[in-house]
């Protein structure tokens, strides 16, 4: 079956989303399987590689599996503020670290 342009875009952008989120094909397949996906892991791998065409519902299940996994990723660490760091340092002095330069 020839791969239509829409499927091609869906597959390419799904692959990009996986790479950006650091998801493996195995992780995606397992979630997809748990969500009722019918294709085997080799078939999902082949779909990502562009060598196998899947029906729209299976493609959407793969997309949703990826999106579920992305939504579960921990948020990026935020930068701390000086006041909070000072409060904490006053409470628990650290022994093994090299001393910080004077702040005043």
């Amino acid at each position, binding site marked *: 079956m020839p791969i239509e342009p829409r499927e091609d875009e869906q597959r390419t952008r799904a692959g990009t989303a996986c790479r950006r989120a650091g998801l*493996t094909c*195995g*992780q995606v*397949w*397992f979630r997809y*399987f*748990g*969500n*009722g996906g*019918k*294709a*085997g*892991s*080799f*078939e999902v791998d082949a779909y990502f590689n562009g060598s196998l065409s899947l*029906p*729209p*519902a299976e493609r*959407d*299940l793969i*997309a*949703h599996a990826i*999106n*579920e996994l992305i*939504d579960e990723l921990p948020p990026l660490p935020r930068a701390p503020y000086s006041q909070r760091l000072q409060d904490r340092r006053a409470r628990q002095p650290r*022994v*093994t670290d090299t001393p910080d330069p004077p702040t005043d």
Partner: protein
Amino acid sequence: MAQVPLADELSAVFTRAAGLLLTEDIAGDALSRLAEAVREVMPDTVGAGMSLFEAGGRTTSTASTRRVVQEADRLQYDLGEGPCLTAWAQGSPVRVDDVRRETRWPLWATAMGGLPVRACLSAPLLTPDRVIGTMKVYSSKPSAYTADSEQLLVRLAAPAAVILGNLQPRDAAARLSEEFRDALRRRDVINTAKGMLMADLGVGSEEAMIILIVAADGARKPLHTVAAEFLGEHVDDAP
């Protein structure tokens, strides 16, 4: 495309997908033998061992040939300093020619005074993406280890890192089957909801699945949550 993958194929595929290669029991035995071999090939060595570290420097697992290794290691972790922690942190081998003249880790060097150990060598266990631990040897002779011994230990550490890098905790198999049962439960809920939708709306299997996916995506919820909610509503609607 098979309707439901065969159970055997499924477990094999899942094992591969989850990266399960070795259990702690199998690897533990291999590591003990390796530690013994390292002790034998490194000249003047009283004990050899390996430690695994988690992020933050906490040790998780060790294989060692002598009590003196465990004791010398424990001192490092308790004091938060020592050659193994440094080798782990910097990802390159660290050599101690004489513990009694050591100045880089004063707390550790002082505490080591009670042990029959004078020299030490520690090499990082390197996997392609990180340092997972260290392999170390201890000697009762000062200056027992040279640049050549350093090279030898680095070479011995390479296969140990491969084993340890692929190690799965003892409960991995149990956890695996729990995850697998969860997946089957979710799959069941979703398929039941799909069947209800097909009957309610008179649509086909694909169409029913797409309706569920659109609902889940719109609510930004997992598919099985939306399916369970739909089933709950469905039960409530019943007279």
